[in-house]
Each structure stands twice: as structure tokens, then as C-alpha cells.
């Protein structure tokens, strides 16, 4: 039924198709953009075609051109799809999991425990995210895995708060009491009764965040953090464009390909997740049923 509704809405249809496209690209990356022999042991390293800095426009060998540092844009985009999914799924998955576990237990147990946990959450939320990410990557060193850690550390609180609010409501419901009266243990009540009735808004939120994590990663690249230089990562690809967006005085579009391809990849990726998330929310949210 949900699927049918998804397919009926043209926008969510587009979202689904886009996502499917990205999944295909990610899965078939080794065939779409074969790894050159020299980097066979590290396919995520984008090949360079020259040691210079200046980008080169698309050609028959490099269908999307070479970006700053002569990195092949096409290769970076194709393999970057995998990175985008990896980072998106791991960050959202982990922070969602942590948030759900902590938020729901805190709300379910309530009382002093809840109070303490919430103050703890407050502490995490008092850090401006970018600053925290900078400090963490400086301490742990640069790398995608460090970015993931930084993102998870400061993302779970949002989910924790969201689910806590929901659990506080649901735990008052009579079916929860009924389950207790039936002798069901707390853990099972939480898993079987409370979570299924509270988790959807969180999952919808998470699906929308999936996309924007790529944007955040690009921001980190812009600040000189993020993936090591040359790693197939859209965020980095687009941050390579920072010095070239202006073009030349007589041709502002001189280096369009450095911005457009990675920009397009990010926008479409974010768009697909958002459209799907929006659609799910519209479907799931009984309040909006006309």
C-alpha cells in the first residue's frame, strides 16, 4: 500500500528512480569506471592525469574533465557514490541507533535517570558542530573514518531527543500498561510496543539526513578536514572547485565542469532522499490524510 502510494506521487517516483540510479552506479562502479592498474589496491583513490593544478575540460578520455590537481572527475563521481552511501549509511545508522537506544531508555525509565541523560545530551548539543568536528579531526587525524566518528558523536543527540519526546507520549498509552499487566518484561515492552510506535518519525528524519551528510562532508573538506585529498568523495570534489567557480574574467564559465558534476551529484542525491523522506512522512502521517 505504501509502495503504491509512493509510486502514485510523481515526486516520490522521481526520488525512488534517482536513488535506484545511485545504487546501480555504486554497485557497478568497478565496471563503469575501472580502476587503473597502479591503484589496484586502493580503488577509492582518484587517478591523476598529470601533476599540475589547473583543471582540464571534458574530453573523450575524461568525459567530465579533470578537476584541480588533474583528478578525473568522472572516476571521482562514480566511486564517490559508494563513499556517499558508506558515509551516509554508517553515520545515520550509528547515530540513529545510539540516539534511539539512549533516548528511548531514558524516556522509558524516566525520573532522575532521564534528567541526567538529558543534561548529558545538552552538553553534546552545546558544541557548535563544525568546531567540534575540527577539534576531533585534529586530535584523531584526518580521514573519512574520523569524519564519521565526529559526525556520529554530534548527531545522535538529535535522534535521542526526537525519540524521547515520542516515547514519553507512547509510554502513557494503555497498551503499554496492558503489556505490563500481561507480565511482559521491560525490554520487550520497549522493543515490541514502544519502539514500533515511535520510530517512524525518527526514521523519516534519518532518511532526510542521509543526503545532507554528503553536504556536511563537503563543508569539512572545504575547511581542510574530511577525506584525505584524492579520495573519491563528492564533498572533496566540489571543494576542489572553490578556486575555479569564478572562471576567468572573459569567461565566467571557464571551469564549469569542476562545479557542475559534483554539484549535480550531491544535489540529486540529497534530493532523492528528501523526496522519499517527504513522501514517507506524508504517507505515514495520518494527520495529513485529506
Amino acid at each position, binding site marked *: 500500500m505504501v509502495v503504491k502510494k509512493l509510486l502514485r*506521487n*510523481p*515526486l516520490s517516483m522521481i526520488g525512488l528512480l534517482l536513488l535506484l540510479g545511485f545504487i546501480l552506479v555504486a554497485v557497478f562502479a568497478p565496471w563503469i569506471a575501472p580502476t587503473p592498474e597502479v591503484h589496484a589496491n586502493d580503488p577509492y583513490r582518484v587517478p591523476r592525469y598529470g601533476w599540475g593544478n589547473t583543471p582540464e575540460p571534458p574530453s573523450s578520455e575524461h568525459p567530465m574533465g579533470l578537476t584541480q590537481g588533474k583528478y578525473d572527475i568522472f572516476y571521482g563521481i562514480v566511486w564517490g557514490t559508494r563513499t556517499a552511501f558508506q558515509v551516509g549509511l554508517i553515520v545515520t545508522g550509528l547515530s540513529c541507533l545510539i540516539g534511539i537506544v539512549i533516548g528511548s531508555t531514558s524516556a522509558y525509565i524516566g525520573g532522575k535517570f532521564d534528567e541526567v541523560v538529558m*543534561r*548529558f545530551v*545538552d*552538553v553534546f*548539543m*552545546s*558544541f*557548535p*558542530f*563544525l*568546531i567540534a568536528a*575540527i*577539534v*576531533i579531526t*585534529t*586530535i584523531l587525524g584526518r580521514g573519512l573514518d574520523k569524519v564519521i566518528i565526529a559526525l556520529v558523536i554530534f548527531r545522535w543527540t538529535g535522534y535521542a531527543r526526537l525519540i524521547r519526546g515520542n516515547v514519553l507520549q507512547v509510554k502513557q498509552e494503555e497498551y503499554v500498561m496492558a503489556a505490563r499487566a500481561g507480565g511482559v518484561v521491560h525490554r520487550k515492552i520497549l522493543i515490541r510496543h514502544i519502539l514500533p510506535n515511535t520510530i517512524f518519525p525518527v526514521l523519516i528524519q534519518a532518511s532526510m539526513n542521509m*543526503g*545532507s551528510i554528503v*553536504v556536511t562532508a*563537503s*563543508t569539512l573538506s*572545504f*575547511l*581542510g578536514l574530511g577525506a584525505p585529498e584524492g579520495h573519491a568523495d563528492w*564533498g572533496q570534489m*566540489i*571543494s576542489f*572547485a*572553490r578556486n575555479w*567557480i*569564478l*572562471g576567468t574574467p572573459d569567461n*565566467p564559465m571557464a571551469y564549469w565542469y569542476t*562545479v557542475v558534476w559534483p*554539484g549535480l551529484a*550531491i*544535489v540529486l*542525491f*540529497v*534530493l532523492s532522499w*528528501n*523526496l522519499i523522506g*517527504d513522501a514517507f*512522512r*506524508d504517507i505515514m*502521517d495520518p*494527520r*495529513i*490524510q*485529506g
Partner: protein
Amino acid sequence: MITYIARRLLFLPVVLIGVTLMIFVAMSFLTPYQLVSTYIKSPEELKNQSLDDLVRKYGLDQPVHVRYINWMRNLLRGDLGYSASANMPVAEAIARRFPATVELALFAIVPVILGGIWLGTISAKHYNRPLDHFSRVFAIVGWSLPDFVFGLILLMVFYGVLGWFPPGRLSMWADSIVLTGDFTRFTGLNTLDALLNGRPDIFWDSVRHLIAPVMTLAYLWWAYLLRITRSSMLEVMNKDYVRTARAKGLTERVVMNRHVRRNALIPVATVSGSMVLGLLGGVVIVETVFDYKGIGLLTATGAQQLDYTLVLGTTLFYGLLLVLINLVVDVLYAVIDPRVRLE
């Protein structure tokens, strides 16, 4: 209400101590020689100097807990320490840079909210019709464009090509008046100070510098507000009282303005608090691109140079701000929505 506020404020020191403690714990993973990089910013400055002398001079060889206690002791005396990356005391750096960011955020919040609500209303009114799709995609594109990309494009168009909105906070001539002339800095907000000093020319100049960064921020945040407005509008539109209003024969316009929009705005009002915070904390990139010297840029640069006194000071400040703004939002929420009771 008063007890509620007092109770929330009671937790303030707890949160702030937690925040600073976390930074110190994080810093304890760093070696003195990593920390000393605040004072030697590039390899070229290494020269014939002893790193150990610098470490000793700035007390970086002391154990973390000693440094924390020292820092706390100074804090209680009102001294936040000296920032090597900002070349001034941390308190002064915050006092100087924060107004700039506040000014930017204040100017941004109006277009962000108005534009976001407008887009959200359009979307909701034309639910699942082309206009809905269009405005949503339009907003999501803004949401998904990294801010430096959009910022640089705006900079190119409005400064590079048209010459209208230059980077920085003030033009050179205005800057020298503000810095050296008899210009009183009342608030640190250039626009306000210019008006208070009776300098409309400087007022216009600072507005001119604000437009492009504000546009960038607005486009980034529209998607967020659109989504909230849209869904709460949709929810309200299905409420009985709206149907009743329609059934009464009120025109669609009156129904929308009087019944739907007003009630739909309550959730919007609550997120605007977190949006103000997001604006204050998340303007690093916009400040970088437009050379707008605000607190975001200050903190980011400081953090990159591991200037931990600065990072501590600003995070403390952000923590304070966060707790206070959240409190204000909650209280306002209760004021706007009579159904909410503070507990």
C-alpha cells in the same frame, strides 16, 4: 514560570562544566608539541628555536587537570585567557566578533522566515500539485548545495560581475572612519551604530555588505522552514475548525490567513529558536567566503590551530547562548500557544 526559568538556569553551570570538561578531556589526547603548534603556525617558522622552550613558556607541559584547574580559577576571576590565534584576550575576541555574527543572523532571520513560510504556504496550498513540487525542489536544491558553492556564485555575480555587494563588513573608507574617526561603537552592530552616530552613508554601506551573505543563508535555510510550515499547514488544514470555517462560506483567503496560517505557525515559532542558534553557529563558511569577520570564522580558525583557550572560551559562550536561547524559545512557546504548560 519563574521557578521553571530558575530551575533551567540552575542546570546552566552543570552543562557548561560538562562542555569544558569534554574539551579538556579531548585536549588530553594531544601532546604538548601538538598544542605548541598554536605558536608556530607553519614549518617555515621553525627556524632555530627550541620547541621545548615554547612548551615550557606556555605551560603546555603541565598535566591536563592542572591546566583545567588553572583555567577554572581564572574563569572565576573573569579571565578567559589569551588567544594566540586571534591575537587578543578570548573575552575581547568574543566581544568583538560576536556582534558581527549577530548582525548577520538578525538580517538573515527575516528573509529566512518570511521566505520559508511563503514557500511552505504555497506548497501546502497546492499540495501535490506542480507548484508544490516546484517550490519543494527549489528549496531542496538550496539545502543540498554546499554553502560555499552558492556563496561563491553569489559573490561572483553580485560582486565580480555587477559590482554591487562587496565582501567584508564595510568598505575601506567606512572602515577607517569606524576604526579611527570619532565613531562610537555602541553595540558593535555596524548598521545600528551607524544610525546612532548619524551616519546614513555607513549604514547603507554595511547593508550593502550584508545582502549577499544574507541571501546565501536564506537560501540554505528555506528548505528547512518550508518543510515545517508545509506539514503543519497541511495538518491544520484538515482540522475541524478549518472545515467549519470553509463550510461557513469564508473565502479561501480568509480561511488561510485567519485560521490556517496562524495556527500553523506555532511549530515554526519553535524552530526559529534553534534556527537562530544554527545561524549563529553555522555561519563559518559564509563568513569565510564573504570575508565577514564574525565569531564562526574566529572559532573555526582557532580550532584549526588548536588554540584551545579560544576554543574553550567560545564553546563556553556557545553553551551559554544555547541554553539561554532554548529557554527563551520554550517560554515564548508557552506564551504563543496557550495549550502548552511549562513544567
